[in-house]
């Protein structure tokens, strides 16, 4: 029994935080498999037809449990893989991001082991590679799972996001291997109780020219300044800002608080601000210490992008706006009066 987990590397070669979450998810899935198997017929080792799946630690040289797949420097990732309980790591030598080739490598490895599930973080790369894997294998791929556990019938009980997490779907998946992406903002990264002695293997996928046709070339240029996705403070503006000229006071406040301005979808749809500032389901997901949402009603499309904020403070004229029931604190009033007074108060305090 092996759950394969696609691991994305951070810029320093370590494991990206989203992949630590995916590894945590994969470990929980592997444990549910083990528990379910001991609780029911121990010979029933397969999701679908029972019996013919190799059990436990005897699969293709792997130790069973969670096996990480790394496209790049497995040695740099190894300490974190060990901490998160990956008994094996498969290093695939492929230069750059080549989505179909990555999927081909996962497909080959999943067949070889064989894997009972393949898991990846629901990032742009993870979702894309897993979609290719679904297409290559002809199997269902379930996006943005929150939890997965093997049930008494040997299928998987899943909970997954719809509407970017504003709605949950309960579902049953009957397919082997199970192909799943993990809703990255819904699962916390938790190290294993016992670190694993991670065995690193090389894996050479069989690729044809078609697998290598689409390949990313990355520009070295990184956007300067604080990014919306990682900002500690976000000052949000919505329809209540009134127009493209109303954002000066939000910029000023964001500057004072060491943060950045984010906006709701209506603001970008009206062309008041560029789309890269949009917070929401179709924009950027933020997770600041403070989200100060000004003149934003709180449509679910917007809330899907900011619910990972530690504290939400709303400033809104309407005490019945949906955002009031999602925020921690609120000021009922017009941002055009509240924000200038707030800027003055903060300036007075620091001088």
């Amino acid at each position, binding site marked *: 029994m092996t759950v394969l987990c696609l691991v994305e590397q951070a*810029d320093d070669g370590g494991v990206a935080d989203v992949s630590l979450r995916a590894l945590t998810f994969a470990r929980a899935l592997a444990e549910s498999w083990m528990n379910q198997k001991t609780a029911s017929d121990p010979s029933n080792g397969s999701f679908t037809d029972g019996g013919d799946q190799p059990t436990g630690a005897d699969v293709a040289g792997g130790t069973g449990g969670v096996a990480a797949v790394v496209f790049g420097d497995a040695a740099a990732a190894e300490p974190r893989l060990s901490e998160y309980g990956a008994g094996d790591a498969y290093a695939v030598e492929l230069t750059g*991001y080549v989505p*179909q080739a990555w999927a081909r490598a996962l497909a080959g490895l999943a067949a070889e082991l064989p894997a009972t599930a393949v898991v990846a973080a629901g990032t*742009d790369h993870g*979702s*894309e590679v*897993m*979609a*290719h894997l*679904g*297409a*290559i294998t002809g199997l*269902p*791929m*379930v*996006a943005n799972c929150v939890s997965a556990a093997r049930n008494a019938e040997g299928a998987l009980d899943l909970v997954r996001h*719809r*509407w970017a*997490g*504003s*709605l*949950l*779907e*309960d579902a*049953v998946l009957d*397919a082997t291997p199970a192909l799943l992406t993990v809703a990255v903002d819904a699962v916390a990264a938790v190290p294993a109780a016992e670190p694993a002695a991670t065995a690193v293997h090389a894996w050479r996928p069989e690729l044809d020219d078609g697998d290598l*046709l*689409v390949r*990313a*070339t*990355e*520009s070295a*240029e990184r956007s300067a300044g604080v990014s919306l996705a990682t900002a500690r403070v976000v000052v949000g503006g919505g329809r209540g800002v009134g127009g493209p000229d109303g954002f000066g006071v939000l910029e000023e406040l964001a500057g004072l608080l060491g943060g950045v301005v984010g906006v709701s979808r209506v603001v*970008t*749809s009206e062309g008041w601000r560029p*789309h890269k500032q949009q917070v929401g*389901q*179709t924009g950027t997901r933020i997770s600041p*210490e*403070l989200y100060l949402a000004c003149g934003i009603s*709180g449509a*679910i*499309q917007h809330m899907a992008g900011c619910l990972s904020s530690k504290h939400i*403070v*709303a400033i809104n004229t309407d005490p019945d706006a*949906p955002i*009031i*029931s*999602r925020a*921690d604190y*609120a*000021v*009922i*009033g017009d941002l055009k009066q*509240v924000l200038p*007074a*707030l800027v003055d*108060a*903060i300036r007075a305090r*620091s001088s």
Partner: protein
Amino acid sequence: MEIAVCVKRVPMVGGKIVVTADGQDVDTRMSGFTVSPHEECAVEEAVRLVERHGGSVTVLTLGPPAAADQLRDMLSLGASRAVLLETDGREWGPIATAEAIVAQVTGAATDPAASPDPALPGPAVCPDPALPDPAASPAPALSDPAASPEPALPYDLLLFGNEAADTGDYQVPVRVAHALGLPCVTGIKNLEVTDAGARAKREYRGTEEVFDIPLPAVVSVKEGINLPRYPSLPGRLRAKRATIETRAPQWRADGLTKTGLRVPAGESKRAEILGNGADAVPALVALLDELGILS
């Protein structure tokens, strides 16, 4: 160039999602419908490409009969042909959806009656005169059967949204690309048709990824690639009169069975009200201080 764009009818959910009493669907009795935001941008991108390079845009949807409304919305933005793959209202999974799309876009090639008909009422699409004559520009692979292993496909580009607003499955375009043997890029925020094919760009973790791909290809885009136009009055009138071609593909299960939908717990807390208007500023400053924001 000939472009097909796939769109999906989804409820306009506004401030709150309500689930039906049987727990199986989103309650849409009080909501309107729209297409997913990424897909509206895909249609806009297709219309812009055709305005530059000539050709026409076909919009395709799989959904209930009422999804014809969304097709007409897309026709009013500049698409010239619309195809409805009609369902009985059941949800289709991504595997079955991709199969139905593949059958439609390839079947259209073998059935002359279903191929893009220049006589259909469509917007007069004139390539920008400042640009090189599209007839003189490099021929898309399609016009040269020897250059394409899939000569049946009557499109140079299949455009999708990156993921549907409701189910967010992230995979229909990739599955369609594999079935047709076409290259595929997803999540694209900038698309240019070049002499060699297409150059597509997207953001990834603060950097820009660039993909150079030959055409025909499958591309999924994200909102922000453009700012969709408002429909013009002539566009609306044309859309109202347009014929919507309808097919009825066969539903099939694809391995994932929905057992129910629910709204996550903890949705209806109530914010602590700090005060009204500018009078609330001292309390707000005290709060920011307490949260460590001012230090």
